[in-house]
């Protein structure tokens, strides 16, 4: 699991420029789905089974993109102005080390913010993205333009690191942890005779409005979809009823937009197979790709299984691999129709 997470999180794929992450995910998926490929919309798809065997098809879905910045302007002193790709956390901008993903390769930079003596009245306020700039160590616009272009994406770098026990931290665990859970499910059912065909979708542009999922679900022939994303794990400053608990297993989503029967089936499977799980109840839509997949075509019966994650949309997101494995096991249990161990 660590090796897979390390590969997936080290790869870069800010919304609309998912190529690096797509290639990492495609290479891992190809072990199970030989036709695995990335398309021009930044989605990775793969198929396991036989289109002519008459079996229903289950889609396993996670999003492949991550939040980041996009370069909008290069000022005369060589500093980069940026906009958001997805919701970045404004509380952590100052002096972060970033990678700017340029056509000729990645370069390093540091986010600069004005120190207190210059911005005295703003000392206790969070920075707006429009207020920050990126210092890439070039003295002029001319020098910077030789390397950087508007439209280049920017990520805050953090490779996977081990915390206590089975907890891990990295950038982009939202939703590479979901991708890892799908891959774990495929590993568990590898070589088994299944009552379903499997479609895999790692969708682009979730962070800017599930655009990859909308595009790809149109081409899908799935009857059922199991989507996985991250959700909030409890931290002491949050409200308990709005969070799952880290380390307590797969969060089975209950929502008006999700298929009731499959959701109940997942809970039953989790209980039968002793897979740790918790319930996440949402009064409306889920804020994940599941919302759009479920209304694709004439409707795809969709369930959502989430991974509790702390510090969402920061470069220090934290997950417990126990929870990632639980999600993978639950997907595998569903794919096997509850037959055998997972």
């Amino acid at each position, binding site marked *: 699991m660590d090796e897979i997470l390390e590969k997936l999180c080290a790869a870069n794929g800010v919304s609309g420029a998912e190529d690096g992450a797509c290639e990492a995910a495609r290479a891992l998926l190809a072990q199970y789905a030989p036709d695995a490929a990335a398309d021009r919309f930044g989605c990775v798809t793969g198929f396991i089974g036989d289109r002519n065997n008459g079996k229903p098809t289950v889609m396993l879905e996670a999003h492949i993109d991550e939040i980041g910045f996009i370069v909008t302007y290069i*000022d005369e*002193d060589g*500093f980069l*102005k940026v906009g958001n790709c997805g*919701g970045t*956390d404004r*509380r*952590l*901008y*100052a*002096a*972060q*080390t970033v990678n700017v993903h340029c056509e000729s390769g990645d370069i*390093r*930079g*540091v986010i*600069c*913010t*004005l*120190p207190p*003596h*210059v911005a005295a009245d703003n*000392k*206790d*306020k969070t*920075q707006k993205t429009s*207020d920050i*700039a990126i*210092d*890439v*160590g*070039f*003295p002029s616009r001319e*020098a910077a333009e030789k390397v950087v272009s508007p439209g280049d994406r920017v990520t*805050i770098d*953090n490779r996977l*690191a*081990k*915390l*206590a*026990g089975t*907890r*891990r*931290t990295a950038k982009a665990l939202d939703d590479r942890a979901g991708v890892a859970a799908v891959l774990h499910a495929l590993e568990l059912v590898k070589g088994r005779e299944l009552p379903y065909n499997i479609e895999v979708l790692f969708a682009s542009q979730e962070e800017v409005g599930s655009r990859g999922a909308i595009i790809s679900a149109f081409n899908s022939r799935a009857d059922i979809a199991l989507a996985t994303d991250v959700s*909030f794990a409890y*931290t*002491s*400053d*949050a*409200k308990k009823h*709005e969070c799952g608990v880290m*380390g307590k297993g797969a969060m089975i989503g209950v929502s008006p937009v999700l298929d009731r029967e499959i959701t109940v089936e997942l809970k039953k499977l989790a209980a039968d197979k002793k897979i740790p799980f918790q319930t996440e109840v949402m009064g409306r839509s889920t804020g994940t790709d599941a919302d759009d997949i479920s209304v694709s075509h004439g409707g795809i019966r969709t369930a959502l299984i989430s991974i509790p994650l*702390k*510090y*969402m*949309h*920061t470069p*220090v997101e*934290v997950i*417990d691999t126990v929870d990632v494995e639980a999600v993978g096991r639950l997907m595998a249990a569903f794919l096997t129709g509850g037959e055998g161990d997972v």
Partner: protein
Amino acid sequence: MSENKELFDLTEKLSKLCGTSGDEGAVRDFISSRIPAGCTVTTDSIGNLIVFKKGAQTPAKKIMYCAHMDEVGFIVTYVCEDGRLKFAPVGGISSSVVFGRRVVFANGTVGVIAAKALHQLTSDEEEKQPKIEDLAIDIGAENAEEARKYADQGDFCYFMGSYEEFGDGFIKGKALDDRAGCAVMLTMLNEELPYDAYFVFTVQEEIGTRGAQCAAFTVKPDIAVILETTTACDIAGSEDEKEVCRLGEGVVVSFMDRSTIYDRELYRLARRAADDIGVKNQTKSLIAGGNDSGAVHKAVGGVRTAALSVPTRYLHSPSCVMKKEDVTAVLDTARELLKRLGELQ
């Protein structure tokens, strides 16, 4: 021209070491191991490393160079029931460079500092930068008992900031304040000197120039030169005097900061020394900051003091940024200044 490779090799190695105020051992050990034979080396009771090196001549005035070994860091103050570690900053650290960072302990334990997700913030909370006292380190422990296996009250931890070169001759790293100064002094110590000099690697600068106070008493210099870093704000959104000083414009010679009014003659002598050898030099356009000079110039009945600094962006963060040519300018000026100080009667 200076031996850049050696200087920046030292800067990189020193930047990667962890040593906040009161925990400078690893830095002191490294520096000790690089001091050439023939020097007189002592570690005093507070932890300063005091090195005396003979030069070609003995100057009329006793000369002391200083750079501090400590960096800003964190100390664990309390282990919460839920396994989080409350902490205090050691030295001045802004909450905005703490939020969303990783820290590392001497035993390799990694922790992260953040709070509830931005999606869960109220609109008021979104506008407010969290205060350091409201934050905690999460090492992934589920409770206090598990946490104590990894870290406990009184343990120090550090920013994780990689050392890298980037852009047009720039470097970034943690603790460049003031390991760059240490690297300059170590480089000088490994050269033939025109005059005898003391080189003091001080402790506890970041919590009130406490090491320098003791070192000045022990060495009793007539003249002190502090090698430091100083805030440069030559960044987007800042102009004119608010930039304070600029990267790429050479060594910063200070006439006054918040702790010291520098010796007028030494200020002029340092700038002239740089000018004469064709080294770029500048001064600060704002009375801001402070360094070991504050303690040294008031010690033992008064010590004539000058400060040579590397202009540095984002001080006291995991990503201090310098331009290499400015570090070289500090080294060149420090060398030339020693010649001229030795001639003073």
